[in-house]
């Protein structure tokens, strides 16, 4: 079949990563086609996350990206994209209720400090000063004042909107069947519908679906999916602006500009999904939202009367070692990978987008992402 669609870069996946890379590439004058399997832009984890823009709690291998993004990109993002992404840089509290929790938090804090992040342990009194609504069960927390949150749905669509304005071509409802090497270089993307797209580079940023797509050229990223769920409350009067997490991982989230609280969590029974990520729009489990509610009320008793108006679920593509796989695949020229974000891709998405666009156009990045390369996985002995 004749190639009917050519661009400098073909991007597989119109999530926030695909949209951000498309934005930064078109800004540099490159032509881009973005292929999306579902009907909606940002249908996967991009729209289904708690909105955290954090550095604290991150693995040192991805921390530089997170710090770079928060310093250089997030503050001006709304202006740059022309849409209010509701970014707030008002800190992240990771809460602990037991000595064991504090130990966990202490460990995370030490590691992040070593990488130069402004994060520290605080006691119950200081926690209450920062967020007076928390219950007395909280005995301490880690505190990173430069962390924050944003609106993931709007941010994803804002990148899409601007990339589209700059000429990026987005095609939805076009699932990819396989990748194809031509004369030693990955050049073609063949879709289920029989269309062929050709580019000098192909970026695969399709969440868990990346695994199957990459498999068509013999590349495998060791990852699995987990279902996470979120709930959204009715709009409430403003209470606090920090991003929240807990050492016990019973919930995470924030209050949005709209006034609603967006809290994510799990029931603990998600590991063995019935549908293994097969569905476009994953369903909730009946027991999860109640469990998240119980978790939240332990920390915020006064939210007991807040009404839940909506719950939703999303898959997270969890990498074997908990950090994403980013960059070139050395033995397949032309292939760029960005997947397995392991549930914390949103906050680093602008930085990933900018750095991958740089990698594609200049062959190098300004932030060190070598720890996230594809070839890092090895047997344990």
């Amino acid at each position, binding site marked *: 079949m004749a190639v009917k669609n050519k661009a400098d870069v073909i991007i597989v996946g119109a999530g926030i990563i695909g949209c951000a890379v498309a934005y930064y590439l078109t800004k540099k004058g490159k032509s881009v086609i973005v292929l999306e399997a579902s009907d909606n832009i940002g249908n996967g984890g991009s729209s289904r996350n708690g909105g955290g823009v954090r550095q604290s709690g991150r693995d040192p291998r991805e921390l530089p990206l997170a710090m770079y993004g928060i310093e250089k990109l997030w503050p001006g993002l709304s202006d740059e994209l022309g849409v209010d992404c509701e970014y707030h840089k008002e800190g992240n509290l990771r809460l602990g209720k037991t000595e064991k929790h504090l130990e966990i938090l202490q460990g995370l804090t030490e590691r992040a400090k070593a990488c130069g992040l402004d994060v520290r342990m605080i006691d119950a009194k200081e926690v209450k000063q920062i967020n007076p609504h928390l219950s007395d069960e909280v005995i301490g927390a880690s505190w990173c004042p430069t962390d924050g949150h944003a609106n993931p749905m709007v941010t994803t669509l804002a990148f899409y909107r601007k990339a589209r304005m700059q000429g990026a071509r987005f095609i939805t409802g076009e699932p990819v069947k396989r990748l194809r090497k031509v004369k030693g270089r990955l050049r073609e993307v063949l879709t289920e519908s029989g269309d062929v797209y050709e580019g000098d580079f192909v970026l695969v940023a399709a969440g868990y679906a990346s695994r199957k797509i990459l498999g068509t050229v013999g590349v495998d990223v060791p990852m699995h999916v987990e279902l996470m769920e979120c709930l959204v409350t*009715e*709009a*409430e*009067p403003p209470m606090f602006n920090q991003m929240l997490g807990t050492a016990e991982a019973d919930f995470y989230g924030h209050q949005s500009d709209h*006034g609603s609280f967006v809290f994510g969590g799990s029931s603990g029974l998600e590991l063995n999904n019935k549908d293994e990520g097969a569905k476009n729009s994953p369903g909730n489990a009946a027991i999860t939202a109640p469990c998240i509610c119980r978790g939240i009320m332990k920390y915020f008793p006064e939210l007991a*009367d807040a*009404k839940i108006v909506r719950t939703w679920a999303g898959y997270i593509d969890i990498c074997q070692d908990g950090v994403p796989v980013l960059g070139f695949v050395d033995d397949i020229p032309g292939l760029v990978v960005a997947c397995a974000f392991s549930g914390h891709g949103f906050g680093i998405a602008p930085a990933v987008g900018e750095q991958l666009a740089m990698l594609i156009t200049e062959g190098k990045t300004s932030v060190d992402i070598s720890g996230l390369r594809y070839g890092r996985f090895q047997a344990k002995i």
Partner: protein
Amino acid sequence: MNRIEEHPILGEPQKGREVTFTFDGKEMKGCEGEPIAMALKANGVMIHRYTKKEHKPRGIFCAIGRCTDCVMVVNGKLNVRTCITPLEEGMVVQTQDGVTAKGA
């Protein structure tokens, strides 16, 4: 005034005993168990809330708990759907303004 005394098909409406409640501090009477919205309507109250963005008045719209336009602050709790919440003796009903009680 807005109550139907006797209906040609349904006869006399079956209502609960008379109870007293307050609306924005003003004492009013209604029938126990009828939706708060009905008691307010019987007392001539049209505005249940003002919207958050535009501060526009809203009142009863669907009357069956779906549209959520009739929400008010009831006994201190916001966003209470008054069209399906039964009236009780001594209830404190307040006009909702955005996400708080009016004047709060």
